[in-house]
């Protein structure tokens, strides 16, 4: 017999976990679909964000939440300055520009991971927070841990803000125009360098602050990035490339799969099951589970 109380709690955990993944998936999907940047460094942005939380939180009364505005600003600035480098690598008269972009971000990821590992050592660190502790017990359903709930809300609102910017403002229109056709967008008088940097900076800022939340939920360790890089790729594959609304569904699917597998099969089998799903989706429905993304080839 399936225990109903356990079942609903698993659903809650899965949904909230999905919310965390949505936070990462949104920006990544934007970078992947709109900018055609295949970013291997996404997980390392999460990791560096979490470490910034761990290092800076003690300066702000041991409260990780207060670090988030700083992380947003710093990551936006850094992202805006990295984008021109990626743009340079993926254009111009070099062979295999897109692969070179992939390899560039791979180098960036190695640099960030190795840098943090060298400076802080291999041990994990806590991101302290006193505001986001405990959980809200809802009778008949289960417990909602505050950190995860706030993270999920943050992720979904990040998505809404992104969508609003993309579809309701002139800047968003410029970015969508660049996504359609970079050369023509430039001919229409759009400063493509500026808008690409804005998009990449926003993506980096969202991912970095997601890192602080993830640090508060779990902890910060130099090796944590790879897992989130994988999850970000999975979400884009599930959602369909460049299709932002699909990210929510992809996040929920990912979170639920993870929590159900961990409880009913085995915690060790989580990645195996996820990889199997991704493989099947990539091969059976390359445009995402909703079939609304660009064709994955």
């Amino acid at each position, binding site marked *: 017999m399936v225990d109903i109380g356990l079942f609903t709690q698993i659903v809650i955990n899965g949904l909230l976990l999905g919310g965390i993944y949505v936070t990462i998936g949104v920006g990544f999907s934007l970078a*992947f679909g709109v900018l055609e940047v*295949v970013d291997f460094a996404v997980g390392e942005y999460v990791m560096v964000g979490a470490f910034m939380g761990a290092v800076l939180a003690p300066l702000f009364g041991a409260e990780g939440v207060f670090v988030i505005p700083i992380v947003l600003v710093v990551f936006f600035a850094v992202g*805006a*300055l990295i984008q*021109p*480098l990626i*743009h*340079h*690598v993926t254009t*111009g008269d*070099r*062979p*295999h520009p*897109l*692969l*070179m972009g*992939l*390899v*560039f971000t*791979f*180098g*960036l*990821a*190695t*640099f*960030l*991971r*190795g*840098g943090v*590992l*060298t400076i802080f050592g291999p041990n994990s660190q806590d991101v302290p927070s006193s505001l986001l502790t405990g959980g809200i017990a809802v009778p008949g359903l289960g417990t909602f841990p505050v950190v995860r709930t706030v993270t999920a809300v943050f992720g979904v609102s990040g998505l809404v803000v992104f969508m609003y910017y993309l579809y309701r403002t002139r800047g968003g229109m410029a970015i969508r125009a660049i996504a359609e056709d970079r050369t023509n967008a430039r001919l229409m008088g759009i*400063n493509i*360098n*500026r808008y690409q*940097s804005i998009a990449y900076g926003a993506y980096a800022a969202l991912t970095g602050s997601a890192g602080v939340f993830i640090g508060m939920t779990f902890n910060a360790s130099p090796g944590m990035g*790879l897992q989130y890089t*994988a999850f970000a*790729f*999975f979400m884009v*594959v599930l959602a369909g490339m460049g299709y932002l609304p699909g990210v929510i569904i992809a996040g929920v699917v990912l979170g639920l799969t993870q929590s159900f597998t961990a409880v009913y099969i*085995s915690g*060790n*089998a989580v*990645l*195996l099951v996820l*990889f*199997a799903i*991704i*493989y099947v989706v*990539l*091969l059976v429905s*390359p445009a995402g589970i909703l079939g609304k993304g660009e064709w*994955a*080839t």
Partner: protein
Amino acid sequence: MSASAPVIGRLPGDQRYWFAAIAVLLLAWPFLFGSFWARIGLGALMWIGLAQSWNMIGGYAGYLDFGHGAYFGIGGFAAGIAMVQFGYPFVVGFALAIVVAAVLAYLVAVPTLRLTGAYFAIATWALAESLKQAALILEITGGTFGLSLPRSPDTFIGIAVPFAISETFFYYVMLVLCTATMLLTYYLFERHEFGYRVKALRDDQDAAESLGIDTTRVKRQVYVLSCVVAATFGSVYAWYIVFIHPNDVLAPIITDRMVIMALLGGLGTLTGPIFGGLLVFLLQRLSSVFLGSSTFYLPLIGVLIMVTVLFAPSGIIGILRGEVGRDDVRKNLKELGEKFDLL
């Protein structure tokens, strides 16, 4: 080294002496410098071979395989399982590693090579991670306990051999394997028609297709070949290192290193992986001695990759051949500066 004679025969005079000098140095290496340097040489040879195996699929065919390290681990575990669970000698394990890697690589190739670019990279990466997970759960691989391989004199070919299974022995095994990999790459990719097919499909798949090249078939051949080569190194490494664990031989860092080595040296070139492999391997081994930290080589390599991609996409080989000169760097810098026009 007699197998390399035809290669030497075609070289111009002074290069012939270089080849001979390097061959003599490599053959005499363990006797000249002792066991510590034999160990370093052994590692360098293995990594050069592995980088070359990645270069086949990643450089020549243009398919970024981010799960290539898995075949290194599979080779190791195939040999390990044959020797530990079934009590066979190493040569049987070696043959088993080739067969298992070939069969698995073909099964993976059929669906996965339909993908390209980033999707191929993700799919292979996912495959490698799930294989690692599986190896941690399964009983035949020793699970989380790993496997300890026997190394007595009768474990090589079944009957006792008259020499010690020592570092020197493994050095020569790696030397043979690495030389064989280099010669194979030279003949298949630089001399044989096969290499031209592979490069054609890398540069323009549709054009290659229209010229009557069965690209699907060629891609599968390259993938299986490169995976089998990685597996042979894995099986020898497992026997050499005696103890193998999924977290070691199936770690993603193995793939990362192969990619970095091939890229830094120069993608799709015969000698690129030699330079890249030597550079990265020595950086890593000497990092703790000279840089004061055993992990400092990682950010250093990260920067090297970014600079290489930005200014010298053809790698060290490109610089040595004079493809990337001062003017190119200056032109690159100027173009890069224009892209920072953000306001």
